[in-house]
C-alpha cells in the first residue's frame, strides 16, 4: 500500500496533550481586560482612546479564539482559513472605504 500523505499538516496534538489550559484564569483575564477597556473609554482624545479600546478588543478575541476555541492546537490550515476570511473582509473594507469617503467626505473620529 502506498504510504499515504498527511494532507493537512501535522497530526492534532489536542488529543495527545491532555493538559488543558486553566479556563477560569483565562476568564478572569478577560474580565480584567473588559474593565481596562471601560477605563480607556474615559480618555477624552477619541482617536487615542478608540485605537486602544479596539486593541484591547483584539487581544480579547485572540484569547477567546486561542484558548476557548482551541485554535492554539489546530493545524495551520484552519488558521489560514480564518485569516483568509478576515482578509476578504479587509479587502471589502479597503476597497469600498475610499469610494465612500471620497464621495461623502470625512468627519474624523
Amino acid at each position, binding site marked *: 500500500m502506498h504510504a*499515504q500523505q*498527511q*494532507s*493537512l*499538516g501535522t*497530526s*492534532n496534538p489536542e488529543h495527545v496533550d491532555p493538559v*488543558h489550559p486553566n*479556563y*477560569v484564569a*483565562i*476568564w478572569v483575564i*478577560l*474580565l480584567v481586560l*473588559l474593565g481596562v*477597556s*471601560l477605563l*480607556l*473609554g474615559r480618555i477624552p482624545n*477619541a482617536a487615542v*482612546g*478608540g485605537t486602544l*479600546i*479596539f486593541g*484591547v*478588543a483584539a487581544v*480579547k*478575541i485572540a484569547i*477567546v*479564539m486561542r*484558548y*476557548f*476555541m482551541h485554535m492554539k492546537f*489546530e*493545524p495551520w*490550515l*484552519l488558521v489560514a*482559513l*480564518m485569516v*483568509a*476570511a*478576515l482578509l*476578504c*473582509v479587509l479587502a*471589502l*473594507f479597503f476597497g*469600498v*472605504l475610499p469610494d*465612500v*469617503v471620497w464621495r*461623502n*467626505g*470625512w*468627519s*474624523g*473620529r
Partner: protein
Amino acid sequence: MSSLTHLHPLSASVSRSPRRIPVIPATRLGMWIFLASEVGTFGGLIATYVMMRMWHHEWLHESAHTLLSIGTINTVVLLTSSLTMVLAHEAAEAKERARTRRFLLLTAGLGLLFLCLKAFEYSHEIAGGHTPKVSVFWSFYFAMTGLHALHIVGGLVLMLYATLGLRHDCVLRRVAPIGLYWHFVDVVWIILFPLMYVTTH
C-alpha cells in the same frame, strides 16, 4: 474485456471506518468552515458601519444614548457563558455526561439572561424615541445587535437539542462544534461592545 475485470481484487479486510485519520474531525472542520463564512457576514456589517460612521459625525450624539451599564453586564454574562461552555466541552471530552449537561444548561441559562437584558435595553431605547427609523445609526444598531441576538437564539436551540440527546454517548461529540459556535458569537459581541457602547460615551 468486461469492465468487471477492472474491479480490484481487494478483500473485505478494508473496514468501512475509519478510512483515514482526518487531521481535523469532520464535525469540527465543518463548523470552522461555517464560521469562516460567518466572519464575512458580521465582518461585512461591521465594515459597512465603520465606513458610514466615518462621514457621519453627528452619530456621536446619537450613540451616546446606548446603555453602557447593561452593555457591560451583558458582556460579563457572555464571557461567563463562554467559560461554562468550554467547561462543558471539557466534561464531554472526559465523557462525564451529568457534568456536561449541567454546564450546557448553565450556558443556555446565561444566554437566556443575555436575551432578557437585551430585550429590556431595546424597550428602553424604543421608549426613548430611538427607533430604527430615526437615523442610520439606530438602523445599524438594531440590525447588528438583532442579528447577533438571532445567533444567540440559534445557539440556545442547538444547546437544548444537544442536552436532549445526551442519553447516547456519541452525542457528546456534538458539544465541540456547538462550543465553537458559541465562542464565535461571543467574539462577535466583543467587537460590537466597544463599537456600539464604549467608544460612544
